[in-house]
C-alpha cells in the first residue's frame, strides 16, 4: 500500500486519516522517499496503552514539492531496526529505544540519548536502573598507537555541557563519538502534564518553549504557536505576522553574526571577533527594543504577538538596523578577505553532500554541502508565503562553506527584514492578536498537527496530537541539532584534533535543544 495523505506546514489532519503501514511497508516507503528527495522530519513513538506494541509516527518532508507525509506504524518490543536502511533514522530510533524500552535489532549504536530513567512499554515491567550520564561503551579503535581523548561535560568556555570522545592516531582523529544528555530537563514530558495547565491557559508551556533552546526562543515559540493556531483554527493578523518574521530574522542575524565572530576567534583573527561580539548584542537589543527581552521572551504568543511597535519605534528599529548591518558587512568583509583566515577555513571539516543527505542534515550545515533545504523556501508558513526567502547554499561542505552560508544568509535576512519593515510601516497600527475567545481555545479533537520553522540552526519540527476532548495528549519537539550532531562527528574524521574547536563552532549546535 502506498500512503496518499499529504499535508503542508502548519496544517492538521484527522488522526484517523493518517495511513497506517506495517513495519516493512514503512521501511519501503521511507527508503523510497529518501531516494526520491524526501527526508525524515521526525520519527517518534506515541505513548499508548498496549504493554507490547508501540505506535510510531514518521513525518517525511519532501522539500522540493513542499509537502509533508505523515504515516503511522507499529513495532513490538523487538523489531528490525530501520537505521541500516535509513541512516537518518539512527538517533530517532535510539531515542525511542530509550524512552519506550524497545530494541531496534540491528541498530549499530544503541547507547542512550538522554541518559534518563529508561522507559518500558509495559507499565508493570520492573524498573531499570538509570544510567550515569556519558557512561557507555564508546566506539573504540584498537591499535598500538591509537589513543583516546575525552573532553567534557564541562568545557573551557562559557558553553553548555556535553562529552566528546575522540579516537586518535597522533594528531589525527579517526572517530568522534558525542555523548549528550547532560542538559536533559524533561521538557517534553511536562508539555502534556499538569504543568501545561493553569496560569493564563497554557501553564508553563510558553516558558518551556522559550527555554527549549534559549538562543532559539523565537524559533521554538513560533513552532509551538503554529501547532496551537493550527489546531484551534486561529490566523494571526498580518501585523503580528510581520513582527514575527522580523523577530525570527533578527534571531538569525544575532546568532549568525555571533558565529562569524566566534569563528574568527577560533582562528585568532581578533578584529572580527571583537566587532561581532558587539554587533551580535546590537541585534539582541533590537529584539529588546520591541519586547524588552534580548532573546524575545514573550514576543510571539498564540494568535499573534505580545508587543506592538508604532511608527516611532519602527523608525528607531530601522535606523539601528541599518547602522548595525553596515558594521556587520565591514566585519565580515575583513574576515573573508584575510588570507590566513581563508587558509584555516578552507578544506577543514569537510562533509560530503552524500553524507549530509544520508544523515538528513538541516539548516546552514546542510546548505553548506550544496543542499538547497530551507523551511522558509520549501514549506513557507505565515508571512514567508508573501515575503519569499531565497535559499543560500555553498557547495564545499567545509568550515568555509558553513561560514560563507552564514554570511550569505545575513544578507538575505537583512533583505527580508527591510521588506517586512516597509510592509509594517504601510499597515495601520494595532491588531496584533487574532480575534476570538480567550486562550486556551477549543482545539480540533483527535488530530495531528505538524509545524516547521526555519530557525537559525535549521528546521525546528513540532508535532502534536489531540485526544477526544481536544486537549493535546502528545507533543514532540525536534531541534535542528538533533539531526546535525552526527554531521559534526563525520566532519572530524581524518582531521587534526586541534581543529575540533573551529569545526565545532562552524556547526554551533545546541546541547539543550538536543537534550530537551
Amino acid at each position, binding site marked *: 500500500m502506498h500512503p496518499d495523505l499529504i499535508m503542508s506546514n502548519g496544517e492538521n489532519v484527522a488522526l484517523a486519516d493518517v495511513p497506517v503501514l506495517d513495519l516493512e511497508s514503512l521501511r519501503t516507503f521511507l527508503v523510497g522517499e529518501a531516494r526520491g528527495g524526501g527526508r525524515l522530519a521526525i520519527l517518534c513513538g506515541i505513548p499508548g496503552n498496549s504493554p507490547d506494541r508501540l505506535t510510531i509516527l514518521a513525518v517525511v518532508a519532501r522539500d522540493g514539492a513542499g509537502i509533508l507525509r505523515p504515516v503511522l506504524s507499529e513495532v513490538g518490543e523487538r523489531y528490525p531496526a530501520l537505521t541500516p536502511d535509513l541512516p537518518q533514522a539512527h538517533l530517532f530510533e535510539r531515542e525511542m529505544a530509550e524512552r519506550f524500552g524497545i530494541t531496534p535489532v540491528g541498530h549499530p549504536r544503541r547507547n542512550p540519548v538522554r541518559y534518563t530513567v529508561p522507559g518500558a512499554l509495559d507499565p508493570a515491567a520492573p524498573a531499570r536502573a538509570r544510567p550515569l550520564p556519558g557512561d557507555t561503551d564508546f566506539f573504540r579503535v584498537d591499535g598500538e598507537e591509537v589513543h583516546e581523548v575525552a573532553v567534557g561535560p564541562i568545557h573551557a568556555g562559557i558553553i553548555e555541557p556535553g562529552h566528546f570522545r575522540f579516537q586518535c592516531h597522533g594528531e589525527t582523529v579517526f572517530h568522534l563519538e558525542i555523548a549528550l544528555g547532560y542538559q536533559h530537563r524533561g521538557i517534553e514530558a511536562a508539555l502534556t502534564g499538569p504543568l501545561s495547565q493553569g496560569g493564563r491557559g497554557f501553564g508553563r508551556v510558553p516558558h518551556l518553549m522559550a527555554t527549549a533552546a*534559549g538562543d532559539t526562543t523565537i524559533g521554538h515559540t513560533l513552532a509551538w504557536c503554529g501547532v496551537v493556531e493550527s489546531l484551534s483554527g486561529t490566523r494571526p493578523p498580518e501585523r503580528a505576522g510581520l513582527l514575527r518574521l522580523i523577530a525570527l530574522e533578527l534571531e538569525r542575524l544575532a546568532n549568525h553574526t555571533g558565529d562569524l565572530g566566534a569563528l574568527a576567534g577560533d582562528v585568532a583573527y581578533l578584529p572580527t571577533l571583537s566587532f561581532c561580539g558587539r554587533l551580535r548584542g546590537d541585534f539582541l537589543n533590537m529584539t529588546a527594543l520591541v519586547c524588552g527581552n534580548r532573546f524575545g521572551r514573550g514576543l510571539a504568543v498564540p494568535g499573534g504577538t505580545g508587543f506592538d511597535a508604532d511608527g516611532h519605534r519602527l523608525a528607531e528599529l530601522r535606523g539601528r538596523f541599518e547602522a548595525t548591518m553596515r558594521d556587520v558587512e565591514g566585519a565580515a568583509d575583513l574576515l573573508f578577505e584575510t588570507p590566513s583566515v581563508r587558509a584555516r577555513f578552507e578544506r577543514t571539516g569537510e562533509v560530503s553532500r552524500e553524507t549530509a543527505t544520508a544523515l538528513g542534515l538541516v539548516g546552514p550545515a546542510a546548505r553548506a554541502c550544496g543542499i538547497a533545504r530551507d523551511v522558509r523556501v520549501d514549506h513557507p508558513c505565515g508571512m514567508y508565503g508573501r515575503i519569499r526567502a531565497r535559499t543560500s547554499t555553498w557547495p564545499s561542505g567545509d568550515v568555509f562553506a558553513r561560514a560563507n552560508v552564514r554570511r550569505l544568509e545575513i544578507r538575505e535576512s537583512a533583505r527580508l527584514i527591510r521588506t517586512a519593515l516597509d510592509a509594517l510601516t504601510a499597515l495601520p497600527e494595532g491588531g496584533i492578536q487574532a480575534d476570538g475567545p480567550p486562550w486556551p481555545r477549543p482545539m480540533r479533537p483527535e488530530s495531528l498537527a505538524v509545524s516547521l520553522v526555519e530557525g537559525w540552526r535549521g528546521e525546528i519540527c513540532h508535532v502534536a496530537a489531540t485526544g477526544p476532548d481536544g486537549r493535546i495528549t502528545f507533543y514532540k519537539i525536534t531541534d535542528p541539532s538533533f539531526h546535525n550532531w552526527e554531521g559534526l562527528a563525520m566532519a572530524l574524521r581524518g582531521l587534526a584534533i586541534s581543529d575540533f574547536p573551529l569545526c565545532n563552532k562552524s556547526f554551533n549546535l545546541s546541547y539543550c535543544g538536543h537534550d530537551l
Partner: protein
Amino acid sequence: MLRAVLERLRQKRRTVPFPAEPPSLPDRLRGLPVIDAAKCPADCRHNPPCAAACPMGAILPGLGTAGTPAIDLGKCLFCTDCTAVCPSGALTFGRDHRLAVRRREHLLFRGEGLKLAEALEKRTRRLFGRSLKLRQVSAGGCNACEADLNVLTTIVFDLGRFGIEFVASPRHADGIMVTGPVTENMRVALLKCYEATPEPRIVIASGSCAVSGGPFAGMPESHDGVDALVPVDLYIPGCPPHPITALDGMLRLLGRI
C-alpha cells in the same frame, strides 16, 4: 592590515561607561517590578488575579507592603502574565536593572526596599576585590543565560577592566558561576567542579533557573537551583538576567558599586 585598522576606526570605541554612568537600557526592559499600593484594589487582594495568572507561583498574596502581593524575584520569569491581568495597572515592570542579592530570602520583594547585594566579607574581598577568576558551569541552562554572560567578555562590557575573568579550569578559579536549574545529569559534574575550586571560593547563581529552578522548578530532572547542592554567595534573578544586571551584581559583591 590597513583595512583592519580603518575598519576599527570606523566601528569606533564601544565600551559602555557603566558603572560610572547609568546604563542605557531598552524602554520596555522588564526590570524590578513596581507594585503601586494606592492602585492595588482592596477587594482584589485576598485572591488576586495576578497570583492566579503566574505560572510559577511567584506571586504571594498579602505579603507585600500594605497587604499588596509580594513577588518572589527568584521564581519570577519576568514575563507579562501578571501585569496583563492586573485590573488596575497597579502591577507593572519597572526599568530598574538592580536585582542581585546575597541571600535567597532577600528576593522576596514586598514592593519596596529590595536588599541589594552587599560586598563580600573583609578577607574574601581583600583576596578577590581586584582580581576575581570565575569558572562558569552550565547545568541545564538554555544558552540564554550563558550567551548573556559571554557577552560580558566582549568589548561592550569589557569585564576584564574590573579584574573579573572567566577561566578554563576550576583549579584556576576563585569561584564558580552557575547557570541552569542543575539537571540530575549535571549534578555530579557540578559538585566535582565545586570541589576542584580552591578555598576560599564563591558561588554565583545566575538566572531564574540557577536561583530557583526557573521554569523547571519541581520537575523530576531538576534540582531546583544551585543552593540545593552548594552554598550560594550571590543570586542574580532574571530569565535571563540582563548583562548589566549580572555585572551590577558582581560589582556589588566586590564592593565596586
